[in-house]
């Protein structure tokens, strides 16, 4: 099990388009990946899950993974969140 905390840096937070970017990165890996906010913990491969997390800008979320290539998986998802999805930052 690998996990890492990251703050959602863009203004609008994880809305539909960022959620799609996260899911697309997550489905590349075979391991289980989750994103956890103070409110909820969801499957990072589920667009439904990531969207209902509704993590707004500035929220701290924890990305965790368990299984094959868990380190790479966490890195990939954290990287995408850190990038701010190419949107306006806070």
């Amino acid at each position, binding site marked *: 099990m690998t996990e890492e905390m990251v703050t959602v840096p863009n203004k*609008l*937070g994880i*809305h*539909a*388009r960022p959620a*799609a970017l996260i*899911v*697309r990165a997550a489905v590349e890996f075979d391991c289980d990946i989750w994103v956890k906010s103070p409110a909820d913990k969801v*499957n990072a*491969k*589920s*667009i*439904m*899950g990531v*969207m*209902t997390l*509704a993590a*707004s800008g500035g929220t701290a979320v924890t990305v965790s993974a368990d299984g094959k290539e868990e380190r790479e998986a966490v890195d990939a998802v954290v990287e995408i969140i850190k990038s701010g999805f190419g949107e306006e930052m806070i």
Partner: protein
Amino acid sequence: MLFRGIPASHGIAIGSAFLLKVEELRHARRILESHEEAEGEVKRFQTAVFSVRHDLENIADSMGDVVEGRQILEFLLLLLQDPMIKKEVEGGILTGMVNAEYAVSTTFRGVMEKFDVMDDPYIRERVADVKDVGRRLIEKLIGTEKEALNNLEQPVVLVAKDLDPSETAGLKPGQVLAFVTDMGGRTSHTTILARALGIPAVVGLQRITSEIHPGDTLIVDGIHGHVIVNPTEEELKYYRDVKARFMEAENLLQQMNPGPALTEDGNRIELAANIELPHEVELVKKLGADGIGLFRTEFLRLIQENGENEEDHYEIYEKIASEMLPKSVIIRTYDMGGDKFRTGLDTVREANPFLGYRAVRIGLERPAEFSIQLRAILRASVHGNIRLMFPMVTHVEQLRRLRDLLKLVQNDLTARGIPFDKKMQIGIMVETPATVIALDLMLPYVDFVSIGTNDLTQYTLAVDRGNPRVADLYDSFHPAVLRQIDTVVRVSHSQGKWVGVCGSMAGNPLAVPLLIGFGVDELSVAPSLIPDVKKMIAVVSTCAAREMAEKSLSIETGLMVRALVHSYVIGKYPEILLDENDWKTGG
């Protein structure tokens, strides 16, 4: 039980109700008997996912590099394959022992409810996408109802929330006796098509789909906009009688002399036909129309599954033009967007599609694709009397670019030694106040204009013609609309250009005298209206029409204008052309 809606297409039909696609996301629950059956349902669900995925990928491919469109499609694909949704549906089937449709609909409804209560407006907006995916899955699961429609043993009355124009185009008059819809207005595109097909229709009934059950007997009175559900014996008898009289009158009109349209005092008015589908040409010729005033080409987009094909266009244009010779055919380039045919392109949701990406706005941004249609029209132009018309031109720059693009295609044809009509007339639709006000600046670039009164009314009055809640504000007799028509005729004639009207007004019994009075050169209407309009023209004297038109310009309300024309034509028109409410409604 009687329902009142908007009379959309004249005629009376009696038949049993067929509900199309009204179930949406609530599907009957069926309890499964065995585990094997449940496994079978899971398989069905997976097959449906697979085939929806295939459809969505095809749409995504067809969008080329429309970035927003691709993003939306990708989002739909992610939703479709979401592991949480998959788990919930399959779990619902296996543990709840229910059919796949029911499991899909409850799961998707749950997801939509979840999205609906979220604070983030960006996420709430995605509810429509969830619904779209759910609907596609259900449609695959139940097999499309449209297929069922094709296998009917006897004709039915079609009941639907709304009909896509593409669906209406596929209806065969023998199969569908009439249609009634919750949505729609008197001049929505679907309505216009219904008239062309000669199917009675009542639209804008708001909630009728939730009141009618499959198999109910319906009387559809497309003259008054009434729908009677499960009528009494007495009502049935009355309407059978009215229907017989209506048919008799219709037959009389059809038998009329197919000569030119002449006013009472012998002035010739060009009366042309609006067509949508190539096979309508036959009827148009029989009715003796003075050409095709508007050939809508949007359906060509539908039949071309693998992108634009110049030969498909060419064959159809060439056939229509040569069959109509020596009469002219006005081909209008794609008018996609707005409420028109759904294409891969407009899967991008716009807040205001009527103010958005439509018609030549699309064409000018995709010149390579647009040139295919232009090339085909030019090539066909040597086989008949073709005129080219561009819709929704609002800026002179657009007109310049359109002419440049046309020139480019012409030069290429010349270089290749392919013949085309160098003198082909070029025109534009006048359908926005902008075009009217700046018309003198646009006219030097064109040979003619044709007024699309439906859009012109909608844009002038800021009324969505398909929204039943504001449909009563839609009024083509509003002073602002009439004055614009007058302006268009005067300005165009002063520059020696001719003016047609191809909107619904050209077929409206109370508008015809006014249009003649304003000096419009050509009226173009649905083929089925040609005999009626010819009759209308025949009783109007040019002099009286001019007086009425002149007078109408200083009248305050549309209602009063209609009353004025009504008092003139009453007793002149055959009774059937006017119904008691005609002068009250503004369509």
